[in-house]
């Protein structure tokens, strides 16, 4: 693989007696899409929650650009250049589409944000992002009034707007029409070209085959297989665990 941007070593998380993630060690490369697949309950979303500090780790470390982290809090994810979308869409529902984007483009410091009005620069960037995903015409509508697919696209635009280096996309294609899938594909490929590390959780193996440079297969929270998609997706143990064949 190319230069690593994010690495996890012996990452562990359990809920009571259930081991959601067990001693998982994986590296994610710059300028590559890493597909993460596995049956339901294999720990994919838990992994994303751990990487973004939405769940505390029980063991192991995250290595981000050379910094070794034994604890990650949610607000620190941006500092380490990590952003995400959610399997169950989590937008700021009763805010406009534009405001959903401006929130990630504007000032983070409390006092400075009090004296900041979004300017032409922010608007221009928000407009460009919304045009990228075909939502500019909806920019004054409340997020809750968007269709399911549009909501997914807005979440993706919001993640891209953060200028992160590591993007965690949790089933971004689920429930999308073909035209919308093409838009999402283009965004992921553009991020790869820009040198970002993209983690793609996806159930559709055809999409994984098309988009991924590397595939990680999880089963019961453990690493089952990893490697190039053409070889991993042919392995018997992967087919048995993931496809039930």
């Amino acid at each position: 693989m190319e230069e690593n941007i994010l690495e996890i070593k012996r990452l562990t998380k359990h809920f009571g007696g259930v081991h959601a993630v067990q001693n998982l060690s994986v590296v994610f490369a710059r300028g590559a899409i890493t597909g993460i697949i596995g049956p339901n309950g294999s720990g994919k979303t838990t992994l994303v929650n751990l990487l973004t500090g939405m769940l505390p780790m029980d063991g192991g470390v995250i290595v981000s650009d050379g910094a070794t982290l034994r604890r990650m809090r949610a607000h620190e994810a941006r500092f380490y250049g990590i952003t995400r979308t959610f399997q169950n869409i989590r937008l700021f529902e009763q805010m406009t589409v534009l405001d959903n984007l401006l929130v990630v483009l504007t000032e983070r410091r409390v006092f400075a944000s009090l004296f900041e009005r979004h300017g032409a620069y922010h608007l221009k960037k928000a407009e460009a992002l919304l045009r990228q995903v075909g939502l500019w015409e909806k920019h004054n509508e409340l997020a809750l009034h968007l269709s399911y697919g549009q909501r997914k696209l807005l979440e993706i635009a919001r993640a891209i707007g953060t200028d992160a280096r590591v993007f965690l996309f949790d089933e971004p294609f689920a429930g999308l029409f073909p035209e919308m899938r093409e838009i999402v594909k283009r965004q992921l490929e553009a991020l790869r070209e820009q040198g970002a590390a993209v983690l793609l959780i996806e159930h559709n193996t055809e999409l994984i085959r098309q988009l991924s440079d590397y595939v990680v297969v999880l089963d019961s929270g453990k690493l089952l297989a990893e490697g190039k998609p053409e070889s991993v997706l042919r392995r018997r143990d992967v087919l048995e665990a993931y496809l039930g064949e």
Partner: protein
Amino acid sequence: MEYVIHLSIVSGIVAILGMSLNLIVGYTGLLSVAHAAFYGIGAYVTAILLAGFGVNFFLALLLGMALAAAVALLIGLVLSRFDDDYYVLASLGLNIIIYSVFLNWNTLTRGPLGIPGISRPELGIGGYRFGLTSNFSFLVLTLLCAVLVYLAARFITRSSFGRVLMAIREDEQALQVFGYRTVYYKLAIFVIGAVMAAVAGALFASYITFIDPTSFMLRESIFMLSVIILGGLANTNGAVAGAVILVVLPELLRFVGLPSNIAAQMRLLLYGLALVLLMIYRPQGLFGKYRL
């Protein structure tokens, strides 16, 4: 005319309370029922300093705001540990604690006897002293304070800070992933709201010239919540409208010819009925877009 001025002063004070609570509840989604405590702190500091030490009203007002800010910072730190229903219950407990201090710290607050003889504000320019003793001059002061609070609320809600408050209301944890330390924002708006409520308290104490703990009970916090729910959450104009309606509407009962003891009970009944009807037919309030 005096009656209209009186209603306008009370409406102005309640509007300040409504606008300040709206920043906390309507914009940030923190369902606090502790607001009467900060209203009370502003009132008691003003009352004690004016009646006991003859301090200038405006200095007392500033000290009341400072004490409300300090207490709000402490209370906000405690409340930041809670979410949702637990937040409401914790804020309820804190309102009761502050009320108990007003009621039981006899040497300072005179407890249930209250503090009488609170003077009206005085302005001193050079050797001239001008007292705001008439209700009309007090109305001008109240409206000036209400306009300042209104402008401050608009300044806050139109800033990037205001947008973050709304995002906290919508999904705090998702917002944190985008690099926001939301606890600081929640603390900041809680303190700002408390300081504004203290202004209302100072005006109230100086206008009525007597205060006792019953004006700062949980019931008052519920009344303030009714004001912003009626006017519309996350809408500063709505908070003002809600205040005027809930102050003026019960007064109309005076003209129906009901005996005064029944009219007083009818006022509470009206508040309750208005809220129930609103929840059924317009849960976002008269001018609001956001639903709880």
